[in-house]
């Protein structure tokens, strides 16, 4: 951390904030504050430069055209890539996840270059759109409980050799490749198709981001009563009889 407050950057709320992923920012902010951390939240619109001094960057999902505009502006700006080079922690969701890869298919049906921060490549799926609740087991190295989320995407994301699958789905489609993988991560950059928003459904991932940003192994506990109640309900709803 560059000074006494945790700097949380919300990337392009004007383009990548269509599916409630603003919740990820709110959850990180809240859980950091509950640990007594001062939080400096920076909402950066797509006509502003991305600061390179942030600790945690959150990139949300968006519709097809805003996704292309966001990729164009992020490539031109370069700030997010420089922040990643500096070791910043980045969580990206859905359209944002695709942008962080090498390339994706844009609203015009053309291949659009991404930022290459994750070793993944996305294409448009041939089959039906993936919509619904997801249950998955997170990569055991991350020591996180079961992942629950809501997916809503047409994309299919293939992982390259240096990207690890973030999770393996029990229910739902995840990366849509048919191999059961969901999302991708390297040491500091995370991508997932999970909305919900993902950090509201999985507050331990928010804590993981904070721990990585602070370079600590543990955080003081907070009252997780409602998060746990919601998690139990969603897991039961996904696995129980329809």
């Amino acid at each position: 951390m560059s000074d006494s407050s945790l700097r949380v950057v919300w990337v392009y709320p004007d383009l990548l904030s269509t599916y409630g992923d603003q919740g990820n920012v709110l959850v990180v902010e809240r859980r950091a504050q509950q640990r007594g951390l001062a939080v400096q939240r920076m909402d950066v619109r797509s006509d502003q430069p991305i600061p390179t001094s942030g600790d945690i960057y959150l990139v949300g999902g968006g519709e097809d055209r805003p996704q292309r505009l966001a990729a164009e502006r992020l490539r031109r700006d370069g700030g997010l890539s420089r922040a990643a080079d500096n070791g910043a922690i980045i969580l990206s969701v859905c359209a944002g996840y695709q942008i962080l890869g090498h390339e994706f298919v844009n609203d015009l049906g053309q291949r659009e270059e991404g930022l290459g921060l994750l070793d993944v490549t996305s294409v448009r799926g041939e089959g039906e759109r993936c919509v619904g609740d997801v249950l998955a087991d997170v990569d055991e190295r991350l020591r996180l409980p079961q992942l629950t989320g809501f997916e809503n995407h047409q994309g299919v994301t293939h992982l390259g050799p240096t990207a690890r699958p973030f999770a393996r789905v029990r229910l739902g489609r995840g990366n849509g490749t048919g191999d059961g993988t969901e999302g991708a991560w390297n040491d500091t950059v995370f991508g997932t198709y999970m909305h919900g928003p993902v950090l509201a459904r999985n507050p331990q991932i928010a804590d993981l981001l904070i721990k990585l940003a602070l370079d600590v192994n543990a955080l003081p506990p907070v009252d997780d009563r409602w998060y746990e109640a919601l998690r139990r309900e969603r897991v039961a709803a996904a696995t129980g009889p329809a």
Partner: protein
Amino acid sequence: MAGNSEPLSPRAKLAVTAGRAAAAVSRAAGRGSGSVIGGRVALKLDPDLLARLAAHLDVVLVSATNGKTTTTRLIAEALRATGEEVVSNALGANMPAGITSALAGGSKARYGVIEVDEKYLAGVAKDVTPKAIALLNLSRDQLDRAAETRMLAEHWREGLAGSKAVIIANADDPLVVWAASSSANVVWVAAGQEWKDDAWSCPSCGGVMQRPGDDWLCGECGFRRPTPTWALSGDHVLDPHGSAWPIRLQLPGRANRANATTSAAVAAAFGVPPQVALERMYSVQAVAGRYDVVSYLDRDIRLLLAKNPAGWLETFSLIDPPPAPVILAVNARGADGTDTSWLWDVDYSRLAGHPICVIGDRRLDLAVRLEVAGVDFQVFDTAAEAVRACPPGRIEAIANYTAFQDLRRAVGN
């Protein structure tokens, strides 16, 4: 042109009769009003029926993400000031089958005031050759399956290009302006826009929108807010001559004053002066249960429907101030959209100071949302428990679509 001067063809008559029979069967079987199923049967027998029924009417279409049912009611009331009959799909069956069914019931009417689902507007406008089309707003709704808002605007824009109808459109919503500006004949109404988060990028070129004060413009391509001729100003309508007419409504809130302003502009296009139109609108009380105040367990519960972030935002601005208790009810069944992520786009910190009771199928999603917003709340399994937890007096109850129906049943509305 007064009433249905030309008789319907035998085939159209048969279709209408078959539709009525199907509707009656559906009603008898307890499947709701029967209007949709009746319309579906009729349309199958005569696919051109909608066009033929409308040919005898002066049709007004109303579309938007929020407020279309209420505005349809307000316009229908205003046009009744002409002394002519008005036929309308007042119960909100707003897709082609429901619209067909509604029009089939109005054989003596001169005016048809029709609410149309956003996705069907362009198609219905081609079928019914409307005289006027009112466009109120476009914003995110039902994240799991709705079309993108800009795609809807584009659909409108293409579908309405070349239409002979006068378009009465909200100058404060960039997506609506972009959709309407393909038409030759537009009346711009400054109806306001509280929810701005679906219009930060220019619908025309993708540039970032600048929003100084109430104005808006794209810095890159010059697309900008048109000069309105009608405006909502506080609780008055400003007409094109600069006269201010007081709005008196039984319906609460800024959004309904905006709906009244647009309705006055529509009525004026049919020769009804704004003061006459506005006076008629006062008679509209509750719209399909919305805004109704129900006595239940010695409390007075005001029932408020809010289906999406823009709707919740408008609703927060009309409720009584603290310490009025607020019941929040959220479901995520098919008709609501099954993704609850939108809750995070609603600024619940605005409810700070109100006692908050949470109910509905997805009360735990809402509980986490409120926990993160840092406001106090209590969670209950049933509406009755929530109501009992509130002191006697007025309660504001805000619910999304199926939660609203559940709530109406629970409190005996």
